[in-house]
């Protein structure tokens, strides 16, 4: 049996698993994936690998007693064994008061994240893609360190109430750091797609090369409040901390940014500039995502923040029942609506400011205000009278993405970007922000 099953093959296997079930309720999750990678540093290949994952997870329940067992062999004897084990574990488990039972069958949107071009990738195609990148650094006294990783996989689930779901997708991510031989310049690029045909490693690498050479001879600027232009790679690592926090339970319990004095939440309140809209949409053409959540709930297009106002917080099925509202699963992707400005136009309209191309080591400092700290990295530039004047030394910042989105000046065109912190892909525009707080200088290049 191949590792990647078609929808029909997955359904047949899952139906077979269910037949062994003697529990009150049973839910089965199935996953198969092939991951290939190639890593290089100092202009040479350092490691490479292929990871094959296949896993079957059976959840059995008796009343509110739940047990889960997993296995990676799919012969009949193994399947029966894993079902029995999950039932034994369920009988031994304490009651889970938050167990909501399995879902009725759902209707899902069509998934669109699978591309043959990526599924067909081989060690040779990875090496070719990397060779195009290395060709640019080797000739120019530059040191390249990069990572190319592709995934071809599917997930499927079935339950004893007749729900069945299947989603196949592919993904390829390419990241590269180019440093000058003397260690005084560094540039970075990261690109991610579902479709390998969209990845041009040479073109991407030339961005890192350009930033590396352009960041040589950085001058120190006093820390303080500056107008900044954040490229999407920099903006996304701040914004995703808002997304991670948009759960109703924590907010209702009074322990997240979305909590409000008096025991209420910020649902319905305007929290950021009215040009800010975040939504999730499994069918977004540039950022397709699974049309169902991990527990089988259907995912639709959902506004989370609309024109600066909190429109939705996610509710687990348990918490929704407690609060008497409809459950809303956490999103599988997130799109921030953009404006129309190009990066060049944003620079041109800036009297005095800083272009930030990447941020690094983002950590929460105060969850109450979503205050984050981190540093600029791999190319930071001073802008004066509408032009990039010179590279500047890196800064540490302490800033909340909420405060930042209240100080919004301009939004550019939204584009697909990979978070260097979480490895998740998003749609994020470049943005100009006033009074962004840099608190100290760093000597790091």
């Amino acid at each position, binding site marked *: 049996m191949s590792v990647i099953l078609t929808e029909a093959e997955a359904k047949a296997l899952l139906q077979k698993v269910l037949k062994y079930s003697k529990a009150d309720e049973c839910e089965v999750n199935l996953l198969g994936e092939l*991951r290939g990678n190639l*890593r290089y*540093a*100092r202009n*040479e*290949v350092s*490691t*490479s*690998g292929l*990871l094959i994952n*296949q*896993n079957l*997870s059976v959840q059995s329940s008796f009343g509110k007693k739940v047990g*889960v067992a997993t296995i990676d062999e799919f012969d009949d004897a193994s399947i029966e064994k894993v079902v029995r084990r999950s039932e034994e574990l369920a009988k031994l*488990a*304490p009651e*889970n008061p938050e167990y909501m039972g399995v879902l009725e069958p759902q209707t899902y949107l069509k998934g669109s994240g699978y591309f043959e071009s990526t599924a067909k990738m081989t060690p040779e195609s990875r*090496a070719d893609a990397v060779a195009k990148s290395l060709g640019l650094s080797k000739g120019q006294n530059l*040191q390249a*360190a990069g*990572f190319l*990783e592709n995934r071809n996989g599917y997930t499927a689930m079935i339950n004893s109430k007749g729900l069945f779901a299947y989603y196949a997708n592919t993904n390829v991510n390419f990241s*590269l750091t180019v*440093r000058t031989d003397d*260690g005084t310049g560094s540039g970075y690029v990261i690109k991610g797609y579902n479709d390998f045909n969209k990845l041009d490693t040479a073109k991407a690498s030339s961005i890192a090369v350009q930033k590396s050479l352009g960041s040589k001879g950085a001058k120190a600027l006093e820390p303080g409040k500056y107008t900044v232009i954040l490229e999407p790679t920099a903006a996304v690592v701040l914004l995703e901390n808002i997304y*991670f926090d948009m*759960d109703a339970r*924590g907010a209702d*319990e*009074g*322990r997240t*940014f979305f*909590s*409000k*004095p*008096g025991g209420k939440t910020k649902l319905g309140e305007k929290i950021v500039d009215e040009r800010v809209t975040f939504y999730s949409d499994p069918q977004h053409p540039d950022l397709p995502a699974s049309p169902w959540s991990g527990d089988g709930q259907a995912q639709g297009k959902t506004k989370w923040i609309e024109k600066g106002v909190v429109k939705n917080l996610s509710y687990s099925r348990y918490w929704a029942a407690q609060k008497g509202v409809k459950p809303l699963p956490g999103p599988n992707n997130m799109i921030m609506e953009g404006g129309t400005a190009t990066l060049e136009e944003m620079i041109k309209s800036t009297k005095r400011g800083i272009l930030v191309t990447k941020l690094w*080591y*983002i*950590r929460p*400092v*105060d*969850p109450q*205000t979503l205050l984050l*700290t*981190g*540093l600029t*990295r791999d190319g930071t530039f001073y802008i004066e009278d509408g032009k990039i004047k010179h590279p500047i030394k*890196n800064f*540490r910042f*302490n800033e*909340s993405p*909420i405060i930042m989105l209240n100080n919004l000046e301009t939004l550019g065109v939204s584009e697909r970007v990979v978070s260097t912190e*979480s490895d998740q892909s998003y749609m994020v525009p470049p943005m100009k922000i006033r009074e962004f707080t840099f*608190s*100290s*200088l*760093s*000597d*790091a*290049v």
Partner: protein
Amino acid sequence: MKRRDFIQLSGMGLGAMMGASIPVLGNSVSVERLLEPAADAAQKKKMADVALNAARSKGATYTDVRIGRYLQQFLFTREKNVQNIVNAESYGVGIRVIVNGTWGFAATSDVSTAGIAKCAETAVAIAKANSKIQTEPVVLAPQKGVGEVVWNTPIKKNAFEIPVQDKIDLLLKVNSEALKNGAGFVTSNMFFVNEQKYFASTDGSYIDQDVHRIWPTFTVTAIDKAAGKFKTRDAISSPMGMGYEYLDGLASEKIAGPNGLVGYRNSYDMVEDVIFAAKQAKEKLTAKSVQAGKYDLVLDPNHLGLTIHESVGHPTELDRVLGYEANYAGTSFATLDKWKTKAFNYGSKEVNIVADKTQPHTLGAVGYDDEGVPCKQWDIIKDGILVNYQATRDQVNILGETASHGCCYADNWNSVQFQRMPNISLLPGKEKLSVQDMIKGVEKGIYIVGRGSYSIDQQRYNFQFGGQLFYEIKNGQISEMIDDVAYQSNTQEFWNSCAQICDKDDYRTFGSFFDGKGQPSQVSAVSHGSSTTRFNGVNVINTGRKIG
């Protein structure tokens, strides 16, 4: 290969503390399965020889094989509920070869003779393919075979033999004490890891090791709903290379700190700590916000460990220094040219930092590393001067040394081993000095306990650290609890401001249980020992903000 799963911890109170997720390696199994013995050494030797012979016959000039059984038991609770119990097992073989001066690696869960032989052939084929684009051949430091040897973590109580119910009872007791003492919410967790690893190489080593690690922890949250404020306090336990005896809470292992605070050495009293934690989280809700400025910092070992980890541990990893981690974790300011001067003052004369893989109870302690090198202790910073790095067999020649430091580790049989941090610890002061006496000498300072927010640049110059508890020191005495504290400094400047270190009676280890490195990312566990230490004139910022 087996599944690598992740438990998302957002909403479990640990998200901010440890990054996004907890890695689970392997299949979920029954508790009883965790107690079943691994294959015996004779059987594993036979399996290893299959790999060594197969690789040699295909042209490998060096081969090592790791037969690994990795067991994990993780327990998660919140308030009155058990949220999750994970019992996981991962079993397989990883084979690493050198062909034409180039590394190749392959792994398999098929542990039959045919499966192992095929895996060895794959490793050879990968090495051959990669050798076409390799320009510098691997130079491996010599390592004499050690024959058939055994090493076990010296545990008193195997955590996997303790009934799950006993563990749940303790965690739920911890939670109920937290709620009784003013916490609004509490999550408590236990992590147990057992690595049963067998290493063999063409050098003539057959090494059987049984490694245990434990980490009990919690987070309490205090809420002021009317004001819309919340504060948390995490456990000040440390992950350890110990068995369940770490949870005995022995009085003899408690260290009385200032202001009624208690530190824990090699035995942890989880119930006592959570009662303190609940009261302190509540106290934080009304604590005075710090006035930004320069302060002398008195740093507790349970806090200082993370600062050592980030500002000394990572920058002295030789692979980072050389550029192998440039695209992810970054490089290092502690470059070879600085080291070669033999005069690079990393810190003040008080600062002596050792790398170590032998210290009992620590996370890094093993008999041999994952390329068969016997473990040892060596100096990294001596009297303030940078004197060495952390290296593996294929790197140590760059330092002019002929024996590896023993810093090679893989987090699973299916991950390739690479350079990972040994325990990196600050030696205690030689003169008798208690924390209370240290505080007496501070005019304007802050006493910091526990691990908080942390961030450092990619070359490890500029850092910012928070903590769990902050106390203002005025004229030699602790005046009151304060909040919104983070300190920012530059690594060299910071360690040169090190003024005093308490003596060995105050020495304790801090640990990092899931330290991430590499692409694809692997975890490792490492301890950092120190006594309470004073740093003069460090820049403190106020992290409080008003929104709306």
